[in-house]
Structure formats: C-alpha cells, structure tokens
C-alpha cells in the first residue's frame, strides 16, 4: 500500500530537486495519509485530547518518512505539499457537505440552519478556496503563506523556514492576505 520511508524520502528529495515525476508520485501518498489522519481526528477516535493541525501534519510526516532526517529544504517541500493536500481535503469535504445539503434531503430540523451564513467563526471553505485562487493569481507567495498558516497550521517561523523568507516578511504577507481575503469573501 504505502511506499516505504526510504522510497518516500527519495521521492521528497527528487521532488525538491524539481523532478515532476517524483512530485506526482508523492502527492497522492501524502494526500491519502493526511486524509486518513484527519478523518480520524475529526471523528475523535484519536485518544489524544487535542490534536492540532500542525501535529497532524507532523504525524503524517513521521508515518511516511519514519525517523529519517531530511534536509531542511526537503522537509520544507514536504510541508508545502502537506499544506496543499490539507486544503484539498478540507475543500472537498466542504463541497461534499454542500452537495448533500443541496441534494434535497428533507431536513426535518431547521434549527440553526441559517446561522452558518452569519456566523463568522466558521469559515466557508469553498468561498475561501475561490478567494485564495484569485489571490494566487495576483501573487502566489501571498496565497502560499495562507496555505501554510491556515491549512497546515504552521507558525510564522515555520512558514518562514519553509518558504525561505524572513519571519517579518511572512508576517507582512499574512496581514495583507487576511485583509484581502476577507474583503474578497464578503463581497
């Protein structure tokens, strides 16, 4: 099923070096692993009290690569792939939920149905995804910061490390991205 840590390590290294073939092999593996883990997390089957997004990504890393130490560049690349995968997983799930709601299932309890739209605490991932695509078209870096911070749960420092830029730049990007996305999403 899952390739051995050795294979994955070399895939990551080759992907970092820019090998397309390696990347296309690696992506589904990371995606599958994260999907499995996040499902587990969401269903609260895990025996940990709180499993953070970032811990989830790190757990996927451990499961895929074992205790092999990667070059920081390779590790950064892996995290970027993981962030991309997390985004994909969550957006797909939101889309499925959306379709299910639209699917005409008679919903007997209308309790709080409409609250979602007005509640700012729950981000509409589908809308966010679209806005992120628009942001990436203007400046891919801005969107990448959001992907790493929000979807992979990385800190400013970790994000800086992965992107190879200074934490101060990450912070600046983050501030602007948030303002830009929120405006985009509310319009």
């Amino acid at each position, binding site marked *: 099923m899952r390739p051995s840590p050795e294979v994955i390590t070399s895939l990551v290294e080759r992907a970092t070096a820019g090998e397309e073939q390696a990347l296309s092999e690696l992506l589904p593996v990371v995606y599958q692993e994260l999907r499995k883990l996040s499902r587990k997390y969401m269903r609260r089957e895990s025996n940990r009290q709180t499993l953070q997004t970032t811990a989830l990504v790190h757990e996927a890393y451990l499961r895929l690569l074992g205790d092999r130490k990667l070059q920081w560049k390779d590790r950064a690349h892996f995290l970027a792939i993981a962030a991309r995968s997390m985004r994909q997983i969550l957006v797909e799930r939101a889309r499925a939920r959306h379709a299910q709601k639209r699917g005409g299932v008679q919903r007997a309890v209308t309790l709080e149905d409409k609250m979602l739209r007005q509640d700012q605490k729950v981000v509409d991932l589908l809308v966010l995804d679209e806005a992120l695509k628009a942001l990436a078209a203007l400046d891919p870096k801005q969107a990448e910061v959001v992907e790493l911070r929000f979807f992979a749960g990385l800190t400013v420092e970790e994000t800086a490390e992965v992107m190879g830029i200074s934490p101060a730049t990450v912070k600046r990007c983050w501030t602007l991205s948030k*303002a830009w996305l929120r405006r985009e999403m509310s319009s």
Partner: protein
Amino acid sequence: MKSNQFERIKELFQAALEQKPADREAFLDQACQGDEVLFQELVSLLAEHEKDDNFLEIPSLESEPSTLEAGDLIGVYRIERELGRGGMGVVYLAEDTRLHRRVALKALAPHIVADPKQKERLRSEARIAASLSHPAIATVYALEESEGHLYIASEYVEGENLRSELQQGPLSPDALLDLAIEVVQGLVAAHAEGVIHRDLKPENIMRNKKGQLKILDFGVAIAPEMDLREEPLTEPGTLLGTPSYMAPEQLKGKTVDFRCDIFTFGILFYELASGSNPFRGETPISTIAKILESEPVPLSQFTTSPVQLDRIVERCLPKDPEQRYPSTPTLLEDLERARTEIKSDLSEDKTAVQHSRDKSSSQPSLHSLWWVIHQVLVLALYGSMVWALWQVKEWTSDVWTLLVFFGVFGCAAVNGTLRTHLLFTARFNSIFIHSELGRAAPWLRRIDGLFAALLLLGAFALAFDHQFLAAFLAGIAMGYVVVFLIVEPATTRARFSPPKEPR
C-alpha cells in the same frame, strides 16, 4: 488587476500600517497621487485589517466544528446524518443504540465549550433540564462528554418550526392564544424548576406531526452572539445571529432570570399576532436601539386584534423586568382569561352568522334574532314617523309645529345611524360590540327620549284640528317610551349576555 499593481498595493499597505491609525488616510491620499482606484482599494483593505476578529487565525482543522459521519458512535448514540449546523455547533440525527429511539445530538462548537464557566453552566443546566418532563418541551436526554467535547442528546422533533408558520402570515387571535398558552405552559414547567430558556425564538419552537408544540434547547441554549455588522438584513427571516429576540438586560450583559423569557415570549407573541417583529430595525444596531429604547406600537393600532392582546404585550415587553409579569403562571392566567373572553365573543359572532344562514334557530340564535328584529322595527318606526309628519306638514303653517317636525326628523336620523352602526358591528366586527354598545347606549336613550317628547308635542299641536291623528301620535310616543325604557334593555341583554364588566 495586474501583478505590478499588486506590488504597489503591498508596498503602500505596509507603509500605511507603519503610520498611526489616525494619519493613515491622509498618508494614503498623498501617496496615491490622485489614483482614486488605488486609494479606495487601500482604504478598504485597511478597514478589513481593523476588524480584528480571529479570521484564519485558528488553523483549519481546529476551526472546523466536529464532523461526525454516519455510523460514528458518541457514547450510546450512533450518528445517522447531519441535520444542521450553526454557531452553536452541529446537530445530528442519531440513534440511541440501547433504547432504539431517535435523538437529536448536538455537538457544541469548540468556541462555546472553550469557556470553562459556560461549560460548567451548560453541564449543570442540562442536568436540571433533563429532569423536565412536559409535553411542550423537547426533553433533554443526556449530556455526553467525549474527549473534551460536549454533546447534548435530546428528543428528536420531526415537523416544522414556527418560522415557517409565520411565513404564512399572522395568526388569528384564537389560534394565537391556543399556541401561546401551549408555549407558556412549557415555560411555566421549566421556570418552576429554575430552568431559563434564554433564546426563545420562532426557530426554537417546533410543531410535531401530531400538531403539538415543542420548545427546543431548554436550558441548554446560549444567548445568541451578536453580529453587529452594519448591513441591512436583506432576507426576511434571517434574523439569526442578530439580536432580534433578546431582552434589554441580555443586551446589557446583566444576569438574567425567567423574566428574560417573558420578554422574548412577548416579542414572539407580538410577531405571531402582527406578522412583524416589534423591534426589527434596518440593521442589528438599530434593532438593539429599539429593544433598549422604543415602545412597540400597540397591536390594536394596526391589526384587528382585540384589546386583550395589547394588555398581554404591555406586560411582557417593559424594559424593566420589575414591570413585567411577576411570574410565568400570572402570564398563563392572563392568556387563558383572554382566550375565554375572545372565544365567547367569537362564538356569539358565529351564532349570529350561523343564524342568518340557518333559520332553524336554537335558543341563543333566537335571542340574537330578537335583538335584530327589535332594531329593524325601531328603524322602521323612525322612518314611518318622519314620513307621516312629512305628509301632514301641509295641514299647518304654525312655526312651532314645523319645529317639532324638524326635531323628529333630526332624532330619527341620528338614532337611525347609531342603530345601523350597531347592527353592522354585531354582524361583522362582533369583538367590538360591547364597547360600541357602551358608547352608543346613553345617546340612544337621550335621543329616543327627545324623539318621544317631540311626538307628544306634535300630538298637542294637532289636537285641535286633527284629533284622530293627534291621538295616534300620542299613542305611538307613549308606546315608544315603554319600548326604549323596558323592551330594548331586555332584548339587548338577551343578545349580549353575560354583560361584560371590566375586571
């Protein structure tokens, strides 16, 4: 927008943030050098930046409410499907695997359980709420805690909530009172145990398939969080997340007791009677201002509501809790009294209607017919007297006699109008008949007295030349005195008994 333009935006946004907030706009105005589009873009971005909520700050997975899928087990509850989600969390339809019954399982959102005080309150109230057993309350079965998450299992109610009933327009007074009494009976039961609802609104009251009302979320509701965006509420009905159903003390953040439910019940009652929320404003802010300051327009001013409903609203909606009903049973008593009063008015109305359709009359409709016949005969008498005097006016040129004739004519016109008005009210607006009778009766009596007196005078004036006619007029006048002093009160009493005394 091109990328190089975005570079410029990035630069200026950063530079603006380094300025003091007050200086930012002036700074941008200068920096944009008249580029209005760029200026507007930056101003709007800065405005978004100022809204400091936790947008995107909590990573994706943590900010997702728990997602359970069909087949997942929480305690003894097996998830079937999601029913709805919102600020408070996600509600699932689940099956109790031990008792094999369906339940609504609410998974409380992480941000609600995050506050330990709130969590503790929910825990203890759910415990008491679970002991409540009343047909109008959706029973809370259990509180499940699983890995730091709180789940509330309660009775699953299939049906429609009151919001959809409201969309079909306001209720008639008797339907409204039936509904209100059912809801308040539930409130009385809960308040007696010290459980307050806190979030009573049309969405939280459901009518099940048997037609029974069920109040959802008793004791486990959390006051709605306010959404203070200055945006008009575009869709009627999307009042959720807005303060439309909050009491003044809730808005002020004071501690609340059962009287907060009485206030929100008042809003609900008003809305069901009139079809509109008494405090609804264009924006949430104006709604809050109205709840805190403005007095609702009495229902009877823009609907055909009986006054009894105004009395109830007046005692539910004072800003000061001390001025509201002192207890929920008092409110219930008042509702029941209003129902009795209105139903007896209505049933009389129905009898009258029925009678006009169906001549095989029973006792009460005979009474009502008798009153109608009386009124019609009196109207005929006015007419015939006017006609008769008009015919004889040629026989005399005496000014006094002419004045008598005009007087009779005037009295007949005024009382004829009053009696027609009463007939009309009894037939089409029977709820108001008592107050209308009360207003008209003294005038009817005075003018009828004058009418009889003028007929007598006329009889005297004619006594020398036309003895027979004079005797006829005098006879009618005397007879009429007997009619309006003795017969009329009797027919009226028969028709409108029991007489309504103000309590």
